[in-house]
Each structure stands twice: as structure tokens, then as C-alpha cells.
């Protein structure tokens, strides 16, 4: 039989049972839509992570205090990083482009009649803008001299500046943080969210001032200028492993610990990327399995309905056989019906999947990136599902005996 005829016969068979055809397709529609949406979600997550990593700044090494030694209750001087370590790294290690130390606090901020509670205050050092890739929009960043002299100067995040001063230029104004008055010397350009940190809603000031004014507890005040984390930016022409080794040797000497049992640990940007990649890959694999399972369930739905359909339409099959349909003609008819169901279902599923991904995006529920190849994949697998799960029922139909089929009520 000519393909056109087969398709005509199969199409008419489906149209005569509209509701059933639609219900059968539902499984495939959901399966295909699931594949597309799942892949779009994981692609969205990957894109987010990629952007985060880029906005963290490149070539970073993180030196962290190791709290397995020198935790609360132990001798305070025995371990952890101190503020001066950062300067030692900057001065004595070769191949370092910048060093940043951060110490944060949360304070009430007042400017004129406006007062905001719980603003994140970040004490930092000179290299913060370059190491963390933040641009100054107005005014300037503070200098090492101002840090050393504990000047009461601040730089505002973009959205915080607008909240406090609206359209007025903030530079030169005075802001009260906690109980201390500060002069605004600059405003950062918009940076947005990195991870869950909103860089635009923070106040930046010399880290020495944070040590002096905002160190949160008596315990912390006693341990003084201790820091949790030092960011080191490796110079472009330097070897990262070499820099790490130098830092290890330097800190081991300064802290008087052995390298087998250090009181600090060093991780690199690459370590973080690798971990995150592993996480997203696991996530992606999980989603792929979920989607594949839903497609298979859709296929079983087709098979189930085709089996019922063959039984219900036994009489029709007998009639067709009696006027000249061969076993192969019957097989092709039901196989084509299954294939059409899955292809039409696949097409609708693509619309639902693309539309659903788009909805997730605009409603802000989840970031999604539609991957064109996922559409091909979904469509291709729905066709494969149709043929695979349609074959058995179609073959059953083909094997019917004409006389028995005609006798069927």
C-alpha cells in the first residue's frame, strides 16, 4: 500500500475516536513537555552557575581559617587567619595580583529621615573592586592609607544609594551606620545577585573600621583582627599551584604549624567550579531520567489504548480483511495510528514544553533556557516510543483470523 493511503486510513481511524485519541496522546504530550522543560530548567541552572562563577572574579584562591583547630573554647591564639596574614601574602608571595579580606556585620543605617535596619556592612581592603570585578559608578573607592588610619568613609551599593538618597548625588553626604557617622566617598555600579548575596544592597568600608566598631561579640573582640577568609587573585602570568605553595609555606611559618596539620585551608576557583559542575551534572542526569520515564509511561499509555482499540475494533479489522486487507495492511494501519498519535502528541508536547519553559521564566519561578536540540530529542524519542509500543498491538491486529474477527460483537 502507498504511504499516503496508509496515513489516510490511520488518520481517519484516529479522527473517528477523537476523545480517545486525545487521551492517548496526553501521556506523550506530558512526556515530551517534561523532557523539554526539564532540560530547559537544568540549562537555566547551568547558565546561572556559570554567570555566578564569572562574576566571582577570575583566578581566585580562597584561604580559609581551619576551624578544626582553634575552635571556640580552645586557645584563641592557636590557629586561624589574621588580618596581617593578608598583607604578608600581598608582600611576600610572588605572582599575586591582589588580596582581599572581608569582615561583615549587619547594622541600622540612617541618612536624613530615612532609616533602614539590617543592612549588610562589608569591611574590606583596597583590592576588592579589582578582585571581585565591581566597578565604581560615582566618586572613588577607599585607599590603603584610609584603611590604615581607620577613616570613617563608605562606598554604597547601587540600590542602597538610591534608597537612601533617591536622585540626589550621594557622594559627600553623611550616613550614620550603627551610631557612627560616615562620609560617602563613592557608589558602586550595579552588580546584581551573586549566589544569594545582593552586592547592590551593601555598604563597603575599610575593614579596620569594622574591626574597631562592629565586631559583633566580646569573644570576637578579644580575638581581635581575626578573619575567616582571604581572597587572593593570582596574576595572569603566574602559576596557580606555585602561588598556593608559597602561601602554604608562608602561613605555616607565620602560624608556626606543620603543613601536615595546617590551621588554614586553600581552595581554588577551579575546585568550586568542579564541584558545581558535578552537582549540575547529577541534577541534569536526574532530570533526564525523570523525563525519560515519563516518555516511557506515555508510550505504555499508547500501547494500552492500542490494545483496547484492537480488541474493540476487531469487527472493523474483520471487515477490512474481508474486502482485501492483508495482515501487513492491518499491521501498518495500527502502527501508523500509534505513530501519528505519538507524533501529534509530540508536536503538542513541544508547544506545551516551550510554552511552559517560557512561563517558568516570566513568572520568575525558575530560570529556564530552551535547548533547541532537546526539541529534536523529544520529538525523535516520541516517534520511537510510538513505533516501539505500537508494534505489539499492531501485530496482534494483523494476526486476527478474518472469520473470527467478523464474528466478534
Amino acid at each position, binding site marked *: 500500500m502507498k504511504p499516503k493511503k496508509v496515513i489516510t486510513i490511520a488518520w481517519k481511524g484516529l479522527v473517528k475516536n477523537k476523545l480517545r485519541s486525545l487521551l492517548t496522546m496526553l501521556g506523550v504530550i506530558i512526556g515530551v513537555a517534561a523532557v523539554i522543560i526539564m532540560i530547559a530548567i537544568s540549562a537555566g541552572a547551568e547558565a546561572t552557575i556559570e554567570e555566578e562563577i564569572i562574576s566571582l572574579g577570575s583566578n581566585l584562591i580562597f584561604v580559609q581559617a581551619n576551624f578544626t583547630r582553634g575552635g571556640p573554647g580552645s586557645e584563641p591564639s592557636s590557629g586561624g587567619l589574621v588580618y596581617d596574614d593578608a598583607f604578608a601574602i600581598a608582600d611576600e608571595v610572588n605572582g599575586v595580583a591582589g588580596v582581599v579580606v572581608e569582615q561583615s556585620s549587619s547594622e541600622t543605617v540612617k541618612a536624613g529621615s530615612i532609616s533602614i535596619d539590617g543592612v549588610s556592612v562589608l569591611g574590606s581592603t583596597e583590592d576588592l573592586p579589582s578582585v571581585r570585578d565591581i566597578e565604581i559608578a560615582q566618586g572613588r573607592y577607599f585607599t590603603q592609607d584610609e584603611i590604615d588610619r581607620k577613616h570613617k568613609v563608605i562606598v554604597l551599593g547601587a540600590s542602597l544609594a538610591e534608597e537612601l538618597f533617591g536622585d540626589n548625588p550621594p557622594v559627600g553626604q553623611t550616613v550614620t551606620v550603627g551610631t557612627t557617622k560616615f562620609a560617602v566617598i563613592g557608589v558602586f555600579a550595579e552588580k546584581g545577585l551573586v549566589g544569594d548575596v545582593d552586592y547592590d544592597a551593601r555598604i563597603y568600608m575599610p575593614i579596620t573600621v569594622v574591626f574597631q566598631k562592629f565586631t559583633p561579640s566580646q569573644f570576637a573582640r578579644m580575638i581581635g583582627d581575626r578573619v575567616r577568609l582571604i581572597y587572593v587573585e593570582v596574576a595572569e602570568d603566574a602559576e596557580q599551584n606555585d602561588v598556593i605553595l608559597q602561601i602554604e609555606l608562608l602561613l605555616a611559618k607565620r602560624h608556626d604549624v606543620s603543613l601536615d596539620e595546617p590551621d588554614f585551608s586553600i581552595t581554588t576557583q577551579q575546585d568550586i567550579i568542579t564541584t558545581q559542575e558535578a552537582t549540575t551534572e547529577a541534577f541534569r542526569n536526574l532530570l533526564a531520567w525523570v523525563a525519560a520515564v515519563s516518555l516511557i509511561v506515555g508510550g505504555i499509555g499508547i500501547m494500552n489504548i492500542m490494545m483496547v482499540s484492537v480488541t474493540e475494533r476487531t469487527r472493523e479489522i474483520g*471487515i477490512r480483511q474481508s474486502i482485501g486487507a492483508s495482515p501487513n495492511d492491518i499491521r501498518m494501519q495500527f502502527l501508523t495510528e500509534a505513530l501519528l498519535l505519538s507524533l501529534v502528541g509530540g508536536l503538542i508536547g513541544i508547544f506545551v514544553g516551550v510554552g511552559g519553559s517560557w512561563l517558568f521564566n516570566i513568572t520568575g519561578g525558575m530560570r529556564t533556557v530552551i535547548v533547541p536540540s532537546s526539541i529534536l530529542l523529544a520529538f525523535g524519542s516520541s516517534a520511537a516510543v510510538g513505533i516501539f509500543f505500537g508494534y505489539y498491538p499492531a501485530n496482534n491486529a494483523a494476526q486476527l483470523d478474518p472469520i473470527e474477527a467478523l464474528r466478534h460483537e
Partner: protein
Amino acid sequence: MTSSQPIIQTTNITKVYGMGDAQVRALDGVDLEIGENEFVAIMGPSGSGKSTVMNILGCLDRPTSGQYFLAGEDVSQFDKTQLAIIRNERIGFVFQSFNLLARTTALENVLLPTLYNRGEEKEESEYQQKGIAVLESVGLGDRLHHQPHEMSGGQIQRVAIARALINDPVIILADEPTGNLDSKSGAEIMDVLTALHAQGSTIVMVTHEDEIAEYAQRVIRFRDGVIETDKMNGNKGN
């Protein structure tokens, strides 16, 4: 009869159902010869093997043993696909229970066999014209687009006859074509078959009713799977 080569010729056909004790010899050695343009009625008590022989003649079934020549060709050992082709091209079968596709118009039902035609394909419009012509010839020119549930039993059976005619078969086989119809509709069907016979068709028909058998030229009576009598109808015969 009227022609040198018979349309149908069977030699010692048997059909055995089941096995062992439950074995039924539905046909027990049937020799039959039907010539071109004959109009034959097959009669006999229930269970005598009438439908069984019709199904074999109609290539819906194969004999357990014996030979069946249809227009000179031995079809008794054909496989399923070959039989399907024979049914499509050479045989027009009319059933007691009509067997039209539901929710399908008269014209579509009539054209159904053409979907399974092998060989070169004609223009769609050619098929349509032929379907309309055949429906007109059975008096249904005004019911082309009616579905079975919109028609009377007699009309439905005429659609079924039109469907049997669409591929110009060498023989029309009808198993109790009037069995589900009242006598008026039954007479209509017989008028159609008589007209077809007059135009040269070869017809074999099963019936229980003597009035229906009257339309035929020749009456073959079955009993227990064998031919009991085979007579020309007294008042007929050309």
C-alpha cells in the same frame, strides 16, 4: 452450464474443526462446479456447512483438504496475503449482518476495498465516479453521504452489495443476504441481485427461505457437510 471453464471448481473439499473427540467435520468432501453467469442458491438445515463452504469459496478460510480452483487458479494453499489479494480483486462478499464500517458514509464504505487495491493507482476522482455509479446501480444515488445509522436495513445491505461490486469481482458470494431483513426489503435485495445476474454476474447465495431461493436458477442442498441435492429451479433456467 453456460461456459467451458467454471468460475468455481472444488474437488473433495473437507473442513475439520477441533481435535479428538470434539472434532467436527463441517465439510466432508464437497465437489462443486459453478459456471459463469450462474445464479446459485445454497440451502440446508442449520449447521449443515453452508457458511463454512461460503467462507472457503470467499477465500476467508482455507479447506482442511481438497482443492479449490477459482477462475482456473488453485487457491486452496494460498497464504494469508495471497488470499487477501484474491478477496480484494476477485470476490464480492455480502454478509447477513451487513458489515459496513460505522460512522462512515455509504460512498466511503463502497470505496473501502479500493484502498487495498494493488497495482497501478487510478485518479481519486475516477474512484469517486465509480463508487457513485455503483451506488446508483443499486438505487442509492441519493444516499451517497448517509452513514449506516441513517439508513434502513435494506438500504444498508444495498450499500454492502455496491461495496462487493466496486472491484468488478468474478463472483458475488452472499451468505443469507436477506436473513436480517423484512420480506419487503428482502425482495428489494433480490431484485438487485437478479438485475446483476441479468447483467452477467455470477452469484452464489445462501438462504433458508424457499421464496428467496426461487430467484436462483439452481439450488444446492447441503446436509451434514455434504451436497445432498443439486437441481435446476423448475420455473427458471435459461
